[in-house]
């Protein structure tokens, strides 16, 4: 079974804090993704990565950055958290060329 693990289920942070969301997959997948899920908007792609040290912007990259130093780990960074970044964050991974992505359980982030 594919396992995508997000380090925190719930996080509460203050405006202006630097926030790290971590994601680890155990299936040696090349591709990793970060989405946010908001009511009425579905899942929107923030960043993705096809290989170590590679990253591509998704649809809503503003206010976020990512890091992929190891194949199994993909980190999402909020440089200076703002209240409009309160959301559910979902990490996913997939093998190269695959159509199906496998998701973690999500991190619900609240920025106060």
């Amino acid at each position, binding site marked *: 079974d594919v396992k995508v693990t997000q380090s925190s289920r719930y996080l509460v942070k203050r405006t202006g804090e630097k926030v790290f969301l971590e994601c680890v997959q155990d299936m040696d997948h090349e591709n990793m993704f970060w989405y946010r899920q908001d009511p009425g908007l*579905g899942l*929107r792609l923030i960043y993705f990565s096809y290989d170590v040290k590679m990253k591509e912007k998704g649809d809503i990259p503003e206010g976020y950055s990512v890091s992929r130093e190891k194949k199994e780990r993909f980190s999402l960074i909020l440089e200076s958290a703002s209240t409009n970044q309160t959301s559910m964050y979902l990490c*996913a991974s997939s093998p190269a060329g695959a*159509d*199906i*992505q*496998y*998701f*973690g359980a*999500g991190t619900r982030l609240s920025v106060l």
Partner: protein
Amino acid sequence: DQQVKQNSPSLSVQEGRISILNCDYTNSMFDYFLWYKKYPAEGPTFLISISSIKDKNEDGRFTVFLNKSAKHLSLHIVPSQPGDSAVYFCAAWEGAQKLVFGQGTRLTINP
């Protein structure tokens, strides 16, 4: 600009009846479509997919229909069971790089 649209935020169906979830898309370049199912406090899980060269794909109780001329796909669940209560997302591949999701439809199966 929402390229994949699920216009029904919620749907309520009686157990044993058919559930039909709809999805419309605007980009004629989409060539592969997927449905994901999401329970509360869990990540989305893949349910069923369809290529644009087909108009139907069936997997047990789940069938996806694709109408390319109308840019419309639908997911049929027959018979509906209480465990089918979840949020369902329609998604489409944009080229080889990006999966575009709809807003989701919350399905509730009533006993």
